[in-house]
């Protein structure tokens, strides 16, 4: 186990290095001089040169990278151009809504995806199966931001059941917080359930073909017991993978969905930073999200190892 973990961690280093290089280069692929872009066309050459020096842009690229990555691993992502505040503070202030939305969205995706996938596999080739696959097909084609707007039209404007925008932190009462987050979570969760439906279906179908399932049925166990006690336990293991994979889509989707519901999360931070060309913030967010994604997938692999004793590396 220990050697497996260290091996996996070592394999992550090159990936994280590439991630860091790409994020670092974001500011350097801008057409023109970032300092000039920041100061506008009216700035004098001296002002631009001074800012270049302040930002360290006049140093050789490899040195800039080394300094930047050295600070980043110590948790220092620099100061934002706009507010001159530490980027980490900015991110920390916006992380709450995004985390809540992503977790609830995952909850919705699983709550829809796993049962629908089970029904689809158990009643294979029936109309239920067809309907489930049609749902999965449709889910993959619907942009979460548009689904969000449609849900607002239906549940907030027409029916008046739920608020169309805003955020209340769970600290102010979990019920109230969920009340505000329900529509965003549905908008994010529904499209992301389609991969889970397909994965659950094919995973369960694989397991249902095994001898021990036939044995369990042959000794007279009721069908639900066979499916939930014998088949699902084994079918769930590959579904772990899909949760890891879905994480990227959830984070990306959360960023877009937030703007629809005016949630003060990472998405709003990124979009406003893009419009202001606040590169340190963009770099910080992208670096952090990619790192978390890599670690989530590592965690999924480790869970495989823990959950399924047959998995040995």
């Amino acid at each position: 186990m220990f050697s497996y973990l260290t091996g996996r961690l070592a394999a992550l280093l090159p990936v994280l290095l590439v991630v860091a290089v790409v994020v670092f280069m974001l500011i350097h692929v801008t057409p023109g001089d970032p300092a000039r872009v920041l100061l506008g066309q009216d700035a004098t050459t001296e002002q631009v040169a001074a800012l270049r020096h302040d930002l360290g842009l006049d140093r050789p690229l490899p040195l800039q990278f080394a300094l930047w990555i050295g600070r980043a691993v110590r948790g220092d992502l620099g100061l934002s151009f706009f507010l001159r505040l530490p980027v980490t503070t900015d991110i920390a202030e916006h992380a709450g809504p995004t985390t809540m939305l992503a977790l609830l969205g995952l909850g919705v995706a699983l709550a829809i995806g796993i049962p629908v996938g089970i029904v689809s596999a158990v009643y294979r080739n029936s109309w239920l199966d067809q309907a489930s696959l049609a749902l999965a097909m449709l889910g993959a084609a619907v942009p979460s931001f548009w689904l969000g707007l449609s849900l607002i039209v239906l549940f907030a404007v027409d029916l008046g059941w739920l608020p169309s925008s805003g955020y209340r932190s769970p600290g102010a009462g979990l019920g109230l917080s969920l009340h505000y987050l329900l529509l965003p979570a549905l908008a994010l969760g529904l499209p992301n359930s389609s991969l889970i439906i397909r994965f659950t279906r094919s995973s369960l179908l694989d397991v249902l073909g095994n001898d021990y399932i036939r044995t369990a049925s042959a000794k007279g166990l009721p069908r639900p017991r066979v499916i939930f006690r014998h088949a699902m336990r084994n079918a769930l293991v590959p579904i772990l993978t899909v949760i890891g994979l879905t994480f990227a889509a959830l984070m990306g989707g959360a960023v877009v969905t937030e703007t629809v519901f005016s949630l003060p999360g990472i998405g709003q931070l990124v979009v406003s930073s893009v419009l202001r060309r606040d590169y340190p913030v963009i770099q910080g967010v992208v670096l952090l999200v990619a790192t978390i994604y890599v670690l989530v997938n590592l965690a999924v692999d480790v869970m495989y190892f823990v959950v399924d004793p047959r998995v040995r590396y």
Partner: protein
Amino acid sequence: MPAGLPASGGRIRRPGPAALLARMVRRRRIVAAGLVLLLIVLGAALLAPQLAPYDPVALDVPARLAAPGHAHPFGTDEFGRDILSRTLFGARLSLAVGALVTALATTAGIAVGLIAGTNRRADRLLMRVMDGLMAFPDILLAIALMASLGPSARNVVIALGFVYTPRIARIVRASVLVIASQEYVEAARAVGAPVARILLRHILVNTASPVIVQATFITAYAMLGEAALSFLGVGIPPQIPTWGGIISEGQVYLRQAWWISIFPGAAIVLSVLSLNLLGDGLRDFLDPRLRYS
């Protein structure tokens, strides 16, 4: 020339694309649905100037925020612009971006995949880079790239093309590794065929099926990606009618005029659905191993 091999130039008659498509539709009926939908979207895009009842950017302030009806089947926006016309013209941009992103990602992906699949030293470096690129959520990387490149249709294509290149590269590399060890490639090498010819005629041709399938999905992702970028205001500038852009403009008027945002979104769903149906059908047809029992 060894005996028993057909002389070079003596071609075996292969079924053309039309015949293959017909065969595929016969076997998987759902593909037909995807094709019909795609043809409708393509037709709408190509014939937009003829089909659109109004100029998509013409202002008609007295008719502002008109509900869907006879004069304006999809209603009008806050400037009285006709949503149906704007949606039709939006199809052109959306499809063009989808096609160009796919072309870019496929070309770059094939190049990277071929190099990685045939050169062991380059392989390690290139595939680490591809792994690193795939560690970013697609849309977030695209947003970050757009921040650097600046909003324009060209830059949306570049950003999304970059984001989707690793998917093609991985597939091509994996196929090349499998195919390069096959006997017929060894045979081609043994008879002294030049490397470029082996790569092109023997290896690349056989990676075509998975690449075509993936390219279909990438077109769908790219259309969704462009819509998201334009919706967020970091994609194609708002002067040009795009589906994402129209949805974003309608967001402010959601309470009075739901139609501004809802119709272009439905167009996105239809287009992406058609491509996904086609991609699924192609995958089942081209790779019989994947077909469900």
